[in-house]
């Protein structure tokens, strides 16, 4: 009962703020709305019992990424400059496309997903379990992707520095 209520609250937050985030005229507000969406998503993870994911989401997304966004916004937006609003046509067309997509996917979900009512034991995912899985090379263990990601991260760091540095 409580889970349901929490879910719907989070759902409401996500739905409202994600729409606000893409429609808001001020970009800094959009970023703020995005932050709310990200936090609410983290809440969903918690609700689903993935505490570790919650932590990562909050730390990386809501923490790191958002800071980057804010910086970028502050760097690229001259204060006081008027925000040009997009053409109505553009918005309408995009909206129609998006709604068509929603309708289509909703249709699929409604007709094709079994109405599963799985009650899952809210078993805790221990850090040990995560650690073992992440650093093993057996089946269903993810050392290789993990390493790949780490190389990617390194590449990104170098790339970002190279791109952004002043010549």
């Amino acid at each position: 009962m409580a889970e349901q209520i929490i879910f719907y609250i989070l759902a409401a937050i996500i739905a409202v703020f994600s729409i606000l985030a893409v429609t808001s005229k001020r970009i800094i507000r959009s970023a703020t709305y995005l932050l709310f969406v990200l936090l609410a998503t983290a809440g969903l993870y918690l609700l689903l019992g993935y505490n570790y994911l919650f932590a990562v989401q909050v730390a990386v997304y809501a923490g790191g990424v958002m800071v980057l966004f804010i910086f970028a916004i502050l760097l690229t937006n001259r204060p006081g400059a008027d925000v040009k609003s997009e053409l109505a046509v553009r918005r309408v067309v995009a909206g129609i496309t998006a709604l068509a997509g929603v309708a289509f996917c909703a249709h699929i979900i409604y007709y094709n997903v079994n109405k599963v009512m799985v009650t899952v034991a809210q078993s805790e995912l221990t850090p040990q379990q995560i650690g073992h899985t992440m650093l093993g090379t057996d089946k269903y263990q993810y050392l290789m992707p993990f390493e790949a990601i780490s190389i990617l991260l390194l590449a990104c760091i170098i790339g970002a520095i190279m791109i952004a540095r002043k010549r």
Partner: protein
Amino acid sequence: MQYTLLILVLPLLSFIVLGLVDSKWSPKVAGTIGTLVLGIITALSYLTAWEYFSMHQVAGVYEKVIPYNIEWLRFTEFLHINLGILLDPISVMMLVVITTVSFMVNIYSLGYMVNEKGFERYYAFLSLFTFSMLGLVVATNIFQMYIFWELVGVSSYLLIGFYYTKPSAVAAAKKAFIVTRFADLGFLIGILVLSFYSKTFDFGILTSGNPSVFASTVGVSFMGVSVMSWALGLIFIGGAGKSAMFPLQIWLPDAMEGPTPVSALIHAATMVVAGVYLVARLFPLYIVYAPDVLHGIAYVGAFTSLFAAVIAVVQTDIKRVLAFSTISQIGFMMVGLGVSGNGGHEGLGYMASMFHLFTHAMFKALLFLGAGSVIHAVHSNEMNHMGGLRKYMPITNWTFLIACLAIAGIPPFSGFFSKDEILSACYEFSPYMGVTMTIIAGLTAFYMFRLYFNIFWGKEHKHEHTPHESGFAMALPLVFLATVTVFAGFIPFGHFVTSDRANYNIELDTVVASISVLVAACSIALATILYRKESAVPKKLATTFSGLHSAASHRFYIDEVYLFITKKIIFNNISKPLAWFDRHVIDASMNGMAGTTQWFSLKIKSFQSGQVQQYAYVFLLGTLAIALMVIFI
């Protein structure tokens, strides 16, 4: 008779040597070499003639001797070009004619051309010409003849265009080459047709009289004309081109742009009679398989002869007069062949034609060399610039007179005998032909003496410096040729050259002879009255018949017709549009293809706009479409 090969090889070597050393040797050396070589081969030719006519008669018939015959290029199982030497009466006779005239011209040129630039080149070309012409007459097969036929054409081109900085000479050379080349196309196709059916090029087989050679032509015809008539008619076109028969005569008067000795050698004595020689060579075929074509040749010859004689009457350039006279005389030879039958008395025309070829070569070369001597003295070709030269140039005067009498047909000069035989043959063919040819003979006498009197008599023209007789090198050939002209008529020609290669005794047809002599004498008398002293009569006549006169002096506008065809029709209405078509239709369509591709790529380029959101739309719609397809179909 192995040494006959030398007759061909020596001039070729002389050409190569003189051509390669170019101007490294002094002109004297070059001239001497050229003349020496000619002297040697002239001697060899006389030797050949003597040996042939004295030793190769079997049962009263001269046999064919083939000292060399080497396969040069093989086409098919049967068809192959051979290069070789064929000696029979006409080829031996031609050998003598060519080497004699050529030798004379070589000597003459030593004096005439001595101050010209490119003396070595001149002698090289003369050697090339002599080589080619000799190769032509001794050809063992029709394709060898064609080969040398072309070489002769080229040497003629080179020699006409000898003064290559003179535009008129260049144009004349070009014209000569292209007109004869056009005719050669007929020759070539004729050869192709003939050889296809007979499976051989060889004269020996072609003229053997063996009907099996042409068995496959029986009943084959194209457009209602039998295939042999086609072949022989086409071959005659080639001959007509070289021999300047109507309507292909236009190149010959212009060819007088070349040096005068060249005109004497090529455009009077030797090359231009190649057509006659060709017909004579294939005479056995014409008479058997295409008598209709042979009659056509007679009519063409007669018409050309008349036509050229009329024009010659009004020309004022002395070399042009001689050129038209040459055309006219070759017409005579063609008529002689055309009206001839085969064998014995029937073959009188053939014999007469060859005889005329022989004598004409001598006296026409003499005329040209004489004219050259005159031109050398007064530096002009125009009759108006001459007159009264007999005092200054006695040798030229007398030799020219002898030649004029010969060509007019006055006995006992050589022209009388040969022309008279032709006339007899014509009367035997048909009285009309005989009468026509007699009239032409009269015309000939008239215009020749008009020429003679205008040059050597009449009012003296003021000269910058007194004309004088030319040197020894130029006088010697004149005297020699005059001697030959005087006595050649007494050669028993029928014992040497006849259509069936058997002996034939020439009998003078006294009726015909007296008529022709009478006509000639009258014409000479008329010319004497009109031109010996200056008189107003010719001018009056010219104004009376002004239409005819101007038409004749414009050579009946044949050149203009040709010019119209080549310039207006071929150049402007075929070639120009074709060139335009190529650039603007064919090429444009290729460019158009490229253009269309480019246009199309420009159009589809906007798909690649660089606008991420546009891509996103396309991507999304694509995904949606695929998903819809997967789910609902």
